[in-house]
């Protein structure tokens, strides 16, 4: 326990150069996420945009926020909150994304994009 606190207090023992290296990797990943969609292939876009975003978030969380050496229950609390978001998504998505279901029909139609935009 004391070792954990010591490690956290000293950023897991890393020097400044370590964090600069992580930052450089994050910039390379940013470049990949910008270039990926240029190929025009949907799967590549999904992987380079959202897959890379997950990797970037993981690296910031693990190395900059020191979640890798933080108490496990802190990580679990954050994971639980993300699970609540997924639960909300699963509960609401059918109503938003489907046009009919068991004994119901969605009467509302989203206006065509741009129909309300003015001045262009």
């Amino acid at each position, binding site marked *: 326990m004391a070792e954990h606190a010591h490690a956290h207090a*000293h950023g897991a023992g890393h020097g400044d150069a370590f964090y600069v290296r*992580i930052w450089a990797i994050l910039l390379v990943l940013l470049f990949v*996420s910008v270039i990926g969609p240029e190929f025009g292939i949907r799967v590549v876009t999904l992987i380079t945009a959202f897959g890379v975003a997950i990797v970037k978030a993981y690296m*910031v969380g693990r190395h900059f926020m020191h979640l890798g050496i933080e*108490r496990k229950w802190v990580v679990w609390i954050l994971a639980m909150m993300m699970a609540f978001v997924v639960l909300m998504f699963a509960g609401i998505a059918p109503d938003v994304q489907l046009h009919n279901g068991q004994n119901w029909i969605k009467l509302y139609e989203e206006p065509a994009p741009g129909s*309300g935009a*003015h001045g262009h």
Partner: protein
Amino acid sequence: MSSSKPIATTRSVMNLPTGRLALWWVIASEIVIFGGLLGSYIMFRLSHDAWAEQAAITSTLAGATNTFILLTSSLSAVLAHQAAERGDGPRAAKMLRLTVLGGLGFLIVKSIEWTGEIQHGYTITSNLFWSFYYTAAGLHGLHVIAGMICMLIVARAAARNQELQRVEIVGLYWHFVDVVWIFLFPLLYIAK
């Protein structure tokens, strides 16, 4: 130890300083706030292919520039934490002020971007895509401003080698703001 000190600086709960524990709870609640907003956006985006036309209007260059700025400011925030751990308050303060400068750069880019979009008629009331766009990016922008104000306060004390434990706490908040943008960027600027 002075009795006038706030409890957060003098007490530890479950071997976690109270200040850091409180910040983790803030982040936990923020995950639900931003998660709910982004989750709703994804639901609508998946069921309205035509939103891609609207997303194509947003500037990838502005989004990528802001991602670069926030990633770089996250680096200066973690370097401030490192300096604070070494007891080097003045360097921690300098790094925090650099982080604030990054936040300012982010807001300037965002202002230029929004001015152009609003001038072209794309406002928060144009349609549901732009409502999500301005709400999500605006809420995130408010978090950036809040972080900048907190950092300036913490940096002022850190420069005098006071309350150095706060450097890590304000840094954690800033990294979270960075993580939120990491997801906003592909959702609003890349997926076209």
